[in-house]
């Protein structure tokens, strides 16, 4: 297992390098890093001064080497959109996106697995049909539409839930060692802040996670049905085990194997959905920032984000594979 993980980790820098070369080249060909600073009517001299500031007078490979050198030193450049070093903005925004993603994934996975199990045990009965409707709803409702509807109903008219990530006064009263609002509130022992953090998470997490609910539910249901038709389950029943125990301890564990792959994929796709959800809910995360950066031609930020997502996806795949190996020992033995 350790050798397997080690092999995968060793390959990570190479993957990142190849992705960075590709993305750097494409962004330079498709635009210019001085894009956010350009204004109609600028003179040739002003444009030349900007190009000199960003080393655009150097050959493309030298520009890449200079950029890579900065990355190695931890300098990801300046974000024109955020008017701050890219590293600083990442540090502020990653926790916001992760916090939202974590809560979205938590409720999506919990509900998806629970609903999938519920549906499988009531196959072709009313419960199964209801679970199917909930699942299809998640797969068919666009996140931007769902988010706007939830905002209009629960924020604008009913006033039950707030917009954004935090109450400004409560947020400013709290130290933020981690920039995770929930964790910072717990560390500070501030129940009011924790309540504020969770309350602001409800609508965006619900919106972001709902699409994954459908996928996980359907996968869990079909996997569990598949397992429950196997001989070892019949054998467990024949030994007199209660049905709950048969499902939970035997069938469901094996049903997790394909489901976890889907969960990993869904979480990755969910991350892409943060752009829309963060924009609608005014959530100050990475997705929101990325959307602005891409539209403004802020290449420094875009490049840093691509590197970050590359690392994230590769790490997620590795985590899924490791979990896979943990759940199914046969997988680990073959690979080592």
């Amino acid at each position, binding site marked *: 297992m350790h050798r397997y993980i080690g092999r995968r980790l060793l390959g990570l820098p190479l993957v990142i390098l190849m992705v960075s070369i590709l993305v750097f080249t494409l962004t330079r060909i498709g*635009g210019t890093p001085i*894009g*956010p*600073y*350009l*204004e*109609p*009517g*600028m003179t040739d001299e*002003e*444009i030349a*001064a900007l190009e*000199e*500031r960003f080393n655009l007078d150097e050959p493309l490979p030298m520009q890449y080497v200079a950029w890579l050198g900065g990355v190695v030193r931890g300098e990801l450049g*300046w974000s024109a*959109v*955020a*008017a*701050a*070093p890219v590293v600083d903005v990442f540090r502020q925004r990653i926790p916001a996106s992760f916090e939202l993603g974590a809560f979205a994934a*938590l*409720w999506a996975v*919990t509900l998806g697995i*629970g609903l999938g199990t519920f549906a499988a045990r009531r196959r072709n009965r009313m419960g199964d049909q209801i679970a199917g409707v909930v699942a299809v709803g998640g797969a068919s409702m666009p996140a931007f539409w769902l988010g706007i509807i939830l*905002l209009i109903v629960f*924020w*604008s*008219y*009913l*006033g*039950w*839930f*707030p*917009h*954004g*990530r935090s*109450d*400004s*006064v*409560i947020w*400013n009263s709290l130290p933020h060692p981690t920039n995770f609002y929930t964790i910072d509130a717990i560390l500070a022992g501030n129940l*009011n802040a*924790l*309540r*504020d953090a*969770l*309350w602001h*998470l*409800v609508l965006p997490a619900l919106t972001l996670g709902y699409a994954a609910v459908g996928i996980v539910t359907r996968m869990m249901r079909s996997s569990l049905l598949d397992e429950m038709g196997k001989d070892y389950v019949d054998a467990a029943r024949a030994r007199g085990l209660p049905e709950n125990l048969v499902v*939970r*301890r035997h069938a469901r564990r094996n049903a997790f194997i394909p489901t976890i792959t889907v969960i990993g994929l869904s979480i990755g796709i969910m991350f892409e959905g943060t752009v829309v959800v963060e*924009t*609608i809910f005014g959530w*100050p995360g990475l997705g*929101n*920032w990325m959307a*602005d950066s891409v*539209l*403004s*031609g802020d290449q420094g930020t875009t490049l840093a984000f691509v590197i970050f997502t590359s690392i994230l996806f590769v790490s997620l795949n590795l985590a899924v594979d490791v979990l896979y190996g943990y759940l199914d020992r046969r997988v680990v033995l073959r690979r080592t």
Partner: protein
Amino acid sequence: MGRRSIAWRILALSAVLSLVVGACGGEATDDTTDETSATDSTTSGETGGDVPNPDVLVVTVNDDVFNLDPAAVNGNDVGMDVILNVYDRLTAIAAEDGAVIPSLSTEVPSLENGLISADGLTYTFPLREDVVFSDGTDLTAEDVKYSWDRVVEMNLPEGQAQLFENVAETRVVDDHTFEVTLGAVDASFLAFLAAHPVASVVSQEAVEGNGGVVAGQPNEYMAQNMVGSGPYTLASWERSDRMNFDINPDYWGEPAHLPVRWELIVDSPATGLQAKEYDIVDISPTDVPSIEPIEHAVVDTSILDLQVLQIGMNMNIAEGALPAGDTIPLDFFQDVRVRQAFNYAFNYQGYIDGILGGLGGRGSFILPVEMYGYDPDAPIYPTDPAMAEQLFTEAGYWEDGFTISIASDQTHEGFTGAALTLKDSVEALNPNFHVNVNAVPEAQFDEILVTDPLPIAMWSYTSSQYSTPDAYLFDSALSDGRYGAVNSFVDGYSDPEAIDALVRSARTELDEDARLQILSEIQNVLYEEAMWIMPANEGAPSARGEWVTGHIENPMWPRPSQYWAIYDK
């Protein structure tokens, strides 16, 4: 019970608890006993009479702040609004009537009070002696000189250093007397100082302690931090989310009523105003129909924007530069009949009623309706298809027709809307006329307009917002101005030297009556030359909660509101 079973139960319980705790948190905002945290909005279900967020003024902007440095902020950055409220300038604009009034200077220089020299070139500013920066240091004439000099020395392409090109020399006479000598007489100089962020006074000590001044290089500290002397201080900035401003306790003037919170990039101002989360919202004309029905909203549509929508025509077309498919000759727009024909063809009322939702007016060539010097009697082009046909025929394009492309910045519906209106108007004249609209993202549009030669025949955009009429003229009318140089106005004007001389005289004429006459004459001349199509002066609606008091609609103020200090609840 197995470990895995326990783990799953804990996970499920945590999820349920999260939801329950979150559900209980919705009423916490009204339960707090902390006086300073009484900023959460009242629910929309409560009866009227409650003032939402009583201790803070919440203002939304539908854009992001890119820079807080007066030396680096560009003309379209909402950071300009922040600079105008946190930093001071030598003069200011009066709220009620737009007159230039003293600010850091105790008097507005004039020939009468002797603070402008007889030749009109030297201005003397006696400074207030009780002004301190937010870091506690005193503001002196040295800081004023330093602030202006650093803009010129840094000379950032993205900044506005060119606005100081007429400043020949700055001098510190003593700690509280500052003097400036201009290269040429400028009738708009004092108004420029009052309303433009580039003339803001920063703390020399703060800048020198944080990167100093480096020619051609931005100052990262100043881009993110503010040490000003104005009615507000920057308390915090959560990028692309919100900015918080505290009342400056050491402000030399009338203190502000409320601290301010700016909510950035708010796409749904109507929803937030409905929920009473926002006090003043930044809206465009297309937002008005969704906001007017809100019972506690006050919408003002009386003011027109100071940015003028413009469609440019390229008089400097290079061989092979235009998109494939364009069939116009290189000198197409050098023929004034062609330019006038396009002006007659455009459906102005259709554009205002359709794209702008009825919120717009017709400015002149080139001044917006609300600008000093605008002549309401100056001629403007009506929609006249017959006249357009006649001119196209005289110019020789009616029979064969043409295909032409127009680029637009797709970030604002007014820009692409104008391009599409032009397409419909021109194509309706003659089936042989074809207009291709290329709506592109802002970054790409900006790149197009700085490419030399221009790779496009026409473009739909807007002027910048200025505080003086000659700024509009220098930008959009002077043959060697920002647009004139790129578009080669010299090849389009009937007499470029005479027109340039007339435009320059509008800046140097100090007698007000004579100046107004010159501005009127310019607007008549530019009408004949038709170097642009002027679709409209877009409306500048404002919306606020009915509980906001002290609100003044001053057309000279950029949206969403310039001086927050005067607002209360």
